[in-house]
């Protein structure tokens, strides 16, 4: 894939927003309200700097320093019985804050509790691998590298996992285009007609949701279809015939009794 024109944020936007509506936050509670989490937090705070902590949707969320991640994971695994790392990945906040937010979803099967460890890193900052603490991070970190381009230090095999190795850019960045190779949209016009016809034919339409009301070759009002190339007409036409109206019957002789399996079991 070639380089593409950089956008700040290619994500779909709501085309209408009520200016008096602001979405409420998901309710959060203090960690002290849950005994188990409070004890875990106390144990962690004695060793590491916890910037922020709260309970949201029944799970504790902790914000730590990026440098501490490995030590925190070892502490969680060996001291606090959080011995299962369900998932880890990143969130792209580059446009808003110039940083990625990483989350590690932990589970303790003995305490039946889940917590999420989070921290932010700058765009060009690398993180330390935890794949030697939890092997499940091996592929999760590779996937994160593949999707966001975040370098993971000391990873045993940091190679693109899902995308091809020669792929340009990282798909889950908000700057990544939704319509693919931009240079490719002129390819057919350039090769068939020549570059000078770009203005005549126009770019290839790649917005899959685009519907042109005046486009009678691709779309027409039902029962207002006109022959190829003609102007749209407001008069109803009879080009489309429906079975219900006595038009083309789809099945002429249908014997429902004969073909239905009444009892299969």
């Amino acid at each position, binding site marked *: 894939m070639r380089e593409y024109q950089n956008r700040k944020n290619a*994500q779909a*936007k709501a085309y*209408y927003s009520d200016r008096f509506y602001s979405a*409420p936050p*998901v309710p959060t509670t203090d960690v002290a309200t849950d005994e188990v989490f409070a004890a875990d937090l106390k144990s962690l705070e004695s060793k590491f700097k916890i910037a922020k902590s709260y309970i949201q949707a029944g799970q504790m969320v902790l914000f730590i320093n990026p440098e501490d991640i490995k030590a925190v994971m070892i502490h969680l695994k060996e001291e606090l019985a959080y011995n299962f790392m369900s998932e880890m990945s990143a969130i792209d906040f580059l446009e808003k804050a110039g940083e990625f937010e990483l989350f590690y*979803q932990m*589970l303790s099967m003995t305490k039946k509790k889940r917590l999420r460890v989070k921290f932010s890193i700058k765009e060009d900052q690398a993180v330390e691998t935890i794949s030697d603490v939890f*092997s499940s991070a091996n592929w999760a970190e590779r*996937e994160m590298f593949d999707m966001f381009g975040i370098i993971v230090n000391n990873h045993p095999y940091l190679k693109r996992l899902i995308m091809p190795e020669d792929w340009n850019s990282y*798909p889950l960045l908000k700057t990544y285009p939704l319509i693919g190779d931009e240079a490719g949209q002129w390819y057919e016009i350039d090769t068939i007609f020549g570059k000078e016809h770009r203005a005549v034919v126009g770019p290839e339409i790649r917005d899959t949701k685009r519907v042109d009301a005046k486009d009678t070759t691709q779309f027409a009002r039902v029962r207002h279809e006109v022959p190829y190339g003609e102007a749209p007409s407001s008069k109803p036409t009879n080009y489309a015939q429906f079975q219900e109206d006595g038009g083309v019957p789809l099945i002429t002789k249908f014997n429902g009794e004969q073909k239905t399996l009444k009892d299969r079991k």
Partner: protein
Amino acid sequence: MQTPNRLKPFYENLVFEKEGNQMIVNFGPQHPSAHGQLRLILELDGEQVVKAVPDVGYLHRGMEKMAENMIYNEYLPTTDRMDYIAAASNNYGFALAVERLLDIEGEVPRRAEVIRVMLLELNRIISHLFWLATHALDVGAMSVFLFCFREREFAMDLMEDYCGARLTHSAIRIGGVPLDLPSDWIDNLHKFITKMPENIADYEGLLTENRIWKMRLEDVGTLSTEEAMSWGCSGPTLRGSGVAWDIRKEEPYGIYDELDFKVPVSDKGDSYGRYKLYMEEMQQSVEILHQTIPLYKKSPHGLMAKVPQYVSATKEELMTDNFALMQHFVLVTQGMRPPVGEVYVATESPKGELGFYINSQGDPYPYRLKVRAPSFFHTALLQEILVGTYLADVVTIIGNLNIVFGEIDR
């Protein structure tokens, strides 16, 4: 390097080393036993695997990217295409995550909860039957494949009667279920689940004491408890290594806390133990389905949560109440706007822990959606578990781990 000539043609998938017994085999991505598009680069010493490198991504459709550009309801049919063998569990995982984000979990009507559990457990049987069929076929038991697919067909008929689709159900929606059960569905379900234990006994009669089956599965793909925990294994793969962890039991969602079922565990850690466990899980799903029938009959009418801000009203209300229609129009064209925050919800899919992480910034589109697919971690495990096994066991282990590529590549 190979030097091809007329006597020694060029082998695309083989690299012969002159010294020693080393050979590199390129297993897949088009291999009938790879269960999808798995490419496995195996380094062999004789017949023994020295190194295995799984290569995935041939079915990548960018589902997490798609989620960021779709409204929540629009994304629901996409989740069908992840674990396409058990689409209802994906629908449910996503719907439950959104419901927890919206804090409307308690609003889902009782009848909808019962129907959801019915669909989930029926889907679990379908998925396990598919697993047994293909796994037995890989190992060489053709007749089991035919038996399993027959019963799976009956279960899929039930699915089809309910929602019209056989694989991609989209039958569980955010806030409830779209339809009530058809009139004779309960009778058909009852017929199916009373027959099912006999069928399971048939499969077990064909396999459990079968000499070849035991030779191919016993002590193959042995996974210790520590390994299973560290590699993020879940579901039957984790329970096969002696960890009694079933999210339905330990962190009950829906009506699972009212249902009486056992969580089978095998402490052997090998493929045969996991096979026994799958059979027992099918039995337990049948038990659960038996219990849901009276619950359904007792449940009051009502299928979708009544939260006009997030969930459209019923069809009758839309046709009679103008304001409900206006709200419906806004929900369909613009989508719901959930609160700002994040949520991670794990459910027990037939394959293991299926988790949905949603980060919402208050827009109709999720800011980030991460799918924690169980098969993804089970595929990562291959590079560890295959080392030291024989080439013939590779197929057994891949089949036994029950991986589905729709949810690995997403």
